[in-house]
């Protein structure tokens, strides 16, 4: 039964109350960042919803995986065997080169570079909010994920961890409007900053002088400056260089090499710890591979 006389505050009072709450939340969350600990907690609270929302997609994937034909499986298997052979050979080469590099670095008294610990994560959900480019992955504080951690896929840098929950965490993609990566051109070492523009297949580079040597097709790799992203991972390919002399700077655009709109599995990187982690890493990876299957 509906009451004839309404109880409680009038709609206007309620509206004013909640708008004040909103304003306070926006101020403290955006300007002061005082919700970082609460964010992790909230993220853990809503992660069941996220797992539930991806269930239909998981089922579709499962069905698709189970409905492949024997011939398809055999062909895939063949291809993987060939790939494994090729990659194994490359890994051998790399091992020799790395040893040599470490020896040379030791001679130069530079710090050695160790292997980074890695972990495979699966994408749980992609945000439908067009203003932020974020995805949620199925790893959280329980797996040792921490805020600001680097996330890559098989092609290049994807982004970094934004909020950590207990069993899931949120990744800020490099194409988000608030994100920037320090990069350099792999051809000549010129340093740039790759800023997201809110468009899924484009990065922009501001404040690049007209005189700088950039060509379409140049590969941009992380420069390791700022010590957030490890050095040398591919980030983007330059797609457009407009050198309009009437403007103060030339306009550079690039396209991320990571398949940001088709992510399914990503790799989390832990900072390199000079070979201490080597045994640990070799333990982690096969286990993770087993989980994917």
């Amino acid at each position, binding site marked *: 039964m509906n009451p004839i006389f309404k109880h409680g505050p009038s709609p206007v009072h309620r509206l004013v109350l909640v708008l004040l*709450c909103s304003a306070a*939340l*926006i101020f403290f969350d955006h300007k002061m960042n005082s919700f970082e600990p609460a964010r992790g907690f909230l993220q853990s609270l809503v992660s069941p919803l996220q797992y*539930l929302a991806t269930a239909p*997609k998981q089922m579709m994937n499962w069905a698709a995986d189970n409905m492949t034909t024997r011939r398809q499986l055999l062909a895939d298997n063949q291809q993987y065997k060939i790939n494994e052979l090729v990659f194994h050979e490359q890994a051998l080469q790399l091992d020799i080169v790395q040893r040599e590099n470490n020896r040379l670095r030791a001679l130069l008294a530079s710090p050695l570079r160790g292997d980074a610990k890695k972990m495979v994560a699966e994408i749980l959900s992609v945000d439908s909010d067009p203003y932020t480019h974020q995805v949620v992955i199925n790893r959280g504080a329980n797996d040792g994920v921490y805020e600001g951690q680097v996330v890559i896929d098989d092609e290049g840098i994807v982004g970094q961890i934004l*909020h950590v929950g207990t069993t899931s965490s949120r990744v800020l993609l490099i194409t988000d*409007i608030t994100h920037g990566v320090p990069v350099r051109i792999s051809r000549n070492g010129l340093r740039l900053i790759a800023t997201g523009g*809110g468009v899924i297949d484009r990065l922009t580079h501001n404040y690049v002088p007209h005189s700088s040597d950039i060509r379409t097709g140049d590969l941009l790799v992380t420069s390791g400056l700022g010590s957030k992203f490890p050095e040398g991972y591919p980030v983007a390919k330059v797609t457009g260089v407009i050198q309009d002399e009437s403007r103060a700077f030339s306009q550079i655009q690039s396209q991320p090499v990571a398949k940001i709109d088709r992510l399914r599995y990503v790799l989390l990187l832990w900072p390199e710890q000079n070979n201490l982690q080597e045994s640990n890493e070799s333990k982690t990876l096969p286990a993770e591979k087993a989980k994917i299957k």
Partner: protein
Amino acid sequence: MSIVSRLIMFLTLLVSLLASIMPLPLSVDAFRPDWVLVVLLYWCLALPSRVNVISAWVMGFILDVLLGSTLGVHAGAMAISVYIVAGNFQKIRNFSVWQQALIIGVLSALYHLIVFWLQRFLTDAVFLPSYLYPVFTTIILWPWAFLLLRKIRRNFRIT
């Protein structure tokens, strides 16, 4: 209001939350209707004494957490849209379903514009026409959602 009624209302809102974060292909994603807004507006029209500005704010807040946006953005926009309906529910109830759909479309556009204005203020987002595509799908969704939710409400005698 019995526990069953509360549970049913809670379930419809939960399903709307799930629908609004369910992963979709990128091309379809731009057209995702505002499920949460539609369900909230229905309950606000049907039972304005149960669902009102504060419940809308709470749903918006959960949406903020789920979408990872700045806390309070969707909450505020949701509260304003629902406030308009809460103030005029007696008029809107008497319209035909398609007229209601147009009004819901206007409210949805307002909702998206408020979210955009706040984002513009916070992060210098640039306006793209695709941000308003959900308005059209929301208009199309409304009659079906309205009929379905009314059937649910009558079936379970939620008052």
